[in-house]
C-alpha cells in the first residue's frame, strides 16, 4: 500500500483461462500490432528493482511467477489461485511448507529449462537487502527459506501460519535465471545489462527499448503456454498528459490507461474509441493529523473526535464526487475499497447534515464571527490542507471542500505541494490535514500498516496517528482468522469503529477509466492488472491498419 496518485496495485486474473485459451493468433495476415501510450519509461526491467508501474507492466509480461491470484480476488490461503510457472503445489500437514512442481516445459528465453534452483535464487535475490527489492521485506517476514528438491520441485518454508502467506509469496517473488545472474555481484544486478535486456520466461520477450521513445515486446517463441495473438506490443512514451490523450484520440495509439473523466467523455463520443471502466483499488480521503505536528500533544482542532465528526457532517460527499467524476466515481466508505473481499457497504456512515454539524461546532464553543468564520477565544476555526499537484481529482476535491467548509464557518487554506514534498511533509507529520490516497491491494490486511496504532509509531504509514485499541484488536483478529467468514466479521467491526472515530473523511474511490481503440478485441480486462490480459488481445478482423502488417525490426 502506498500514498499514490491513482495507480492500481498488484492483482488478479479474472480467469487465467482467458489467458491460456484465448489465444490462437489472428488470421493469415498475422496477429497485428498494438500501440499503448504511457507517460513514463520503466526505469529498469530487473524484476526486483522494478518500482514504477511501467516496469511492473513489462516485467510481468516477460517473467512468470509461480502462481497468481484468481478471479475471486481472494487472498486467504491458496483458494482460487491459479498455476502459472508451477503446475501444482502441495501443502505439508502442518501447512508451514508448500512444495511447488514446476512446469517441465517452462524455458528461459535463452533456451534453458526453468529449474527449482531459479526459484531459490530468485528468493535469495529478492530478500538480499543489498539488492533493495521493494517486496523483499514482505517476503522476509513471511518466508523463512526455500529448499530445492529436484530440478523441478522446490519447497517453501513459512515462518508462521499467517492466512495471507501464500498470497505474499506468489505476488512478491519472481523466479530469476540463476544460470545468467549467479555470477553477477548482487549490488550491481540492477545496473547490469540484464536490467535492460532481460531474459524472461513469460509469454513475451523484449524486442527493443529506446528510452523516452518506445518499448516493444513480441511473443516469446520459447514460451510453453499459448502464443499471444498479437505480433507486436509497443509502448510509446510521452511525458505530457495532454499529448498522450491527443495521440490516443488521433488513433496513433490503441490503448491509454487512466483517462480523466473529461477525456473519457470525449473519447466516448468518438466512434472508433471506447472507454472501459475497471474496478478500483484506490481510495482517497481527507486525512486529519490527530497530533500537533510531529509532537505528541493532541492537535488543537483534530484532537477532538466531535470536531472531526462535525467536519465530516458538513461535507456533502455525494455532491463532491458527482462534481468531480460525474456519475463515474463512488463515495468512499472507510479504509477499504468495494473490490476487496472484506468490503462492507452496510457500515453506518456519518451522513451529510449541515444543521447538525453547526450544532456540534457551536457546542464545542466555535461561534460564527463577523466574516462568517467561526472563532473560539479569538482563534479562528481554520486549518491548512496540503494537496499534491500531481493529482487533478485531489486538487478539485480540495477546492470544493474549501468552499463547502467555508459555508460551515471553517476556513481552509489549501497548500499545493509536489508529490515528493507532500510525502516528505506527511512522513514527518508536518501537516494539519492532507488530501491522502492509498492504493489498496486485494489483501485487506494492508489496513494494519496504515491505520492501526502500531503503524502510528516508528515510521509507520499511519501518518495521522489515529490510535484506538479496540480498532487494533479487531484488525488483529481479522488478520489472524483463517476462515473468511470470521475474518469478515472482524473487519466489519473494525471498519465501523474507525468510521465512527472519523480520523479521516472518506471521500471517494476514483474510477479507473481506460481508453481502447474499437479495433482491439480485449476480452475482459482485469480490474487492476489489465496488462495481464495482453496475451489474449487481438485485432478485430476488418479493422486492421497498415501497422498491423509491419514486421518488427530484427534485432
Amino acid at each position, binding site marked *: 500500500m502506498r500514498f499514490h496518485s491513482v495507480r492500481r496495485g498488484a492483482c488478479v486474473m479474472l480467469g487465467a483461462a482467458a489467458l491460456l485459451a484465448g489465444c490462437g493468433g489472428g488470421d493469415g495476415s498475422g496477429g497485428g500490432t498494438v500501440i499503448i501510450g504511457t507517460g513514463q519509461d520503466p526505469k529498469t526491467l530487473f524484476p526486483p528493482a522494478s518500482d514504477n508501474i511501467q516496469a511492473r507492466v513489462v516485467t510481468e509480461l516477460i517473467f512468470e511467477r509461480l502462481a497468481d491470484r484468481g478471479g475471486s480476488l481472494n487472498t486467504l490461503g491458496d483458494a482460487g489461485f491459479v498455476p502459472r510457472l508451477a503446475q501444482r503445489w502441495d501443502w505439508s500437514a502442518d501447512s508451514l511448507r508448500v512444495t511447488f512442481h514446476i512446469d517441465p516445459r517452462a524455458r528461459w528465453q535463452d533456451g534453458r529449462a526453468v529449474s527449482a534452483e531459479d526459484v531459490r535464487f530468485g528468493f535469495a535475490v529478492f530478500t538480499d537487502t543489498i539488492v533493495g527489492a521493494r517486496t523483499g521485506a514482505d517476503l522476509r517476514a513471511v518466508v523463512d527459506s526455500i529448499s530445492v528438491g529436484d530440478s523441478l520441485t522446490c519447497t517453501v518454508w513459512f515462518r508462521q501460519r499467517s492466512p495471507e502467506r501464500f498470497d505474499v509469496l506468489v505476488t512478491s517473488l519472481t523466479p530469476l535465471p540463476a544460470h545468467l545472474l549467479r555470477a553477477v555481484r548482487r549490488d550491481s544486478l540492477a545496473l547490469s545489462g540484464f536490467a535492460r535486456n532481460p531474459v524472461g520466461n513469460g509469454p513475451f520477450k523484449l524486442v527493443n527499448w529506446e528510452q523516452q521513445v518506445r518499448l516493444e515486446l513480441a511473443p516469446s517463441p520459447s514460451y510453453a503456454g499459448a502464443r499471444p495473438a498479437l505480433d507486436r506490443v509497443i509502448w510509446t512514451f510521452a511525458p505530457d498528459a495532454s499529448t498522450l490523450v491527443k495521440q490516443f484520440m488521433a488513433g496513433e495509439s490503441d490503448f491509454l490507461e487512466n483517462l480523466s473523466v473529461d477525456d473519457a467523455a470525449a473519447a466516448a463520443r468518438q466512434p472508433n474509441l471506447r472507454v472501459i471502466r475497471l474496478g478500483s483499488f484506490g481510495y482517497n480521503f481527507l486525512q486529519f493529523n490527530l497530533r500537533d505536528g510531529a509532537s505528541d500533544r493532541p492537535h488543537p482542532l483534530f484532537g477532538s473526535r466531535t470536531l472531526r465528526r462535525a467536519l465530516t457532517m458538513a461535507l456533502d460527499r455525494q455532491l463532491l464526487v458527482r462534481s468531480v467524476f460525474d456519475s463515474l466515481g463512488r463515495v468512499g466508505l472507510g479504509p477499504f475499497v468495494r473490490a476487496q473481499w472484506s468490503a462492507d457497504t452496510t457500515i453506518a456512515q456519518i451522513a451529510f447534515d449541515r444543521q447538525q454539524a453547526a450544532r456540534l461546532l457551536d457546542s464545542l464553543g466555535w461561534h460564527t464571527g463577523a466574516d462568517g468564520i467561526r472563532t473560539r477565544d479569538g482563534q479562528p476555526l481554520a486549518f491548512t490542507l496540503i494537496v499534491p499537484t500531481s493529482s487533478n481529482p485531489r486538487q478539485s476535491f480540495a477546492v470544493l471542500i474549501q468552499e463547502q467548509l467555508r459555508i460551515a464557518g471553517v476556513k481552509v487554506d489549501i497548500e499545493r505541494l509536489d508529490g515528493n514534498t507532500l510525502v516528505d511533509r506527511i512522513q514527518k507529520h508536518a501537516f494539519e490535514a492532507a488530501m491522502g490516497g492509498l492504493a489498496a491491494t486485494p489483501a485487506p490486511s494492508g489496513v494494519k500498516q496504515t491505520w492501526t496504532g502500531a503503524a502510528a509509531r516508528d515510521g509507520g504509514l499511519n501518518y495521522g496517528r489515529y490510535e484506538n485499541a479496540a480498532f487494533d484488536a479487531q484488525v488483529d483478529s481479522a488478520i489472524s482468522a483463517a476462515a473468511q467468514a470470521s475474518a469478515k466479521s472482524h473487519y466489519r467491526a473494525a471498519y465501523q469503529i474507525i468510521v465512527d472515530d472519523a480520523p479521516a473523511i472518506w471521500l471517494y474511490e476514483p474510477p479507473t477509466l481506460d481508453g481502447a481503440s474499437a479495433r482491439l478485441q480485449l476480452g475482459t480486462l482485469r480490474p487492476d492488472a489489465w496488462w495481464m490480459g495482453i496475451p489474449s488481445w487481438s485485432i478485430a478482423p476488418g479493422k486492421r491498419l*497498415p501497422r498491423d502488417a509491419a514486421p518488427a525490426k530484427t534485432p
Partner: protein
Amino acid sequence: MRRFLLARGAQALAVIALVATLAFTLVHLAPGDPFAASLDDPTNTAALHAQQMHRWGYDQPLPVQYLKWLGNLARGEFGWSHSRNRRVADVLLETVPRTFLLMGAALVAGVLAGLALGTWQAARRGTPAERASGTLATAVLSVPEFLVALAALALPAARWHLFPVSGIADPAMHDSMSAIGRAWDVTRHLVLPAGTLALLTAAGVSRYHRSAMLAMLPEEFVRTARAKGAGEYTAVVRHALRNALGPLITIVGLLLPTLFGGAVFVETIFSWPGVGRMMVEAVGGNDYPLVLAGVLVGSVLVVLGSALADVLSALADPRLRIEA
C-alpha cells in the same frame, strides 16, 4: 586568426568550467536527494535510502563529491543516471543528436525563412504588406513557445490530422521502411516541433535582418550596383544581402540560448525525446547527474555555437578572413 581562435576557445572552456561548478553547487546544496522520489513508496525504508545514498557517494562531503565529479568529467564520464538506470553518457549519446536534429532543422528553416522575409521587407519597405508582416513578426515574438506548441498540437496535429501528434518516428512501421521512407517518417514528425521553433526563429531573424538590410541599403555600393543597371532584386539580394549576412551569423549565435530554452517546452509538448525533455524529466526525478549533464550540454551548445558563429561571421567577411 589562429590567436583569435585560441582565445575564443579558451574563453569558451573557462565559461563552461564555471557553469559546471555553479550548476554542481546549486544542485547539491538543494534539499532533497536523488532517492527521495522513491520515498513515495513505503517499502523504501530509511535504511534502504541510506544504503542508496552511501552507494552513490551522496553521503560524502560536497567538495569530495565535486572533485570526484570533475575527475569523472575529465575522463568523459558523466556519472550514472538513477532515474534511467543507465550511464549518463549513453543517455546523452541518444538525446543530444535528437535535439541537434530538432534545433538544426528549426535553425535552418527559421533562418532561411527569416532571411527571405527580412530581405523581402527591406526591398518592399514602407508598403502596407511589409508593415503588416513586420507587425506580425513582432506579435509572433511575443507569443511564448509553449503557446505556439500547444496550438500546433491542438490544430494541425490533433484536429486536422495533418501531422503526427508526438514522437520522433512511427513506433510500429519506422523500422520496416526504406531509407527514403524513414527520412520522410522522421521529417513528418519533425515538422510541427521544428516548425514551432522555426516560426519564432524566423520572426526574430527577420526583424534583425530587416533592420540590417535597411542599414545596408543606403550604402554606396548598393547605389553603385543600381548605377550598373542592377534591378532592385539584384541590388538587394546580391549586394545588400551578402553584406548583411556576416552580422546575422552572430545574431543567430545569440539566438541559440533562446532556441534551446524553447526546445525544452517543445520537446515536452511534442514528446520529442531530446535533451530538453530529458532535463524536465530529470528535474522531476531529482536525477542530479542527468540534470548537471543537461545543463552542461546546454551551455556547451550555446558557448560553442556562439564561438562558431563568431568564427563563421569572421570567415564570411573577407576583410577579416585575410588573416587566416
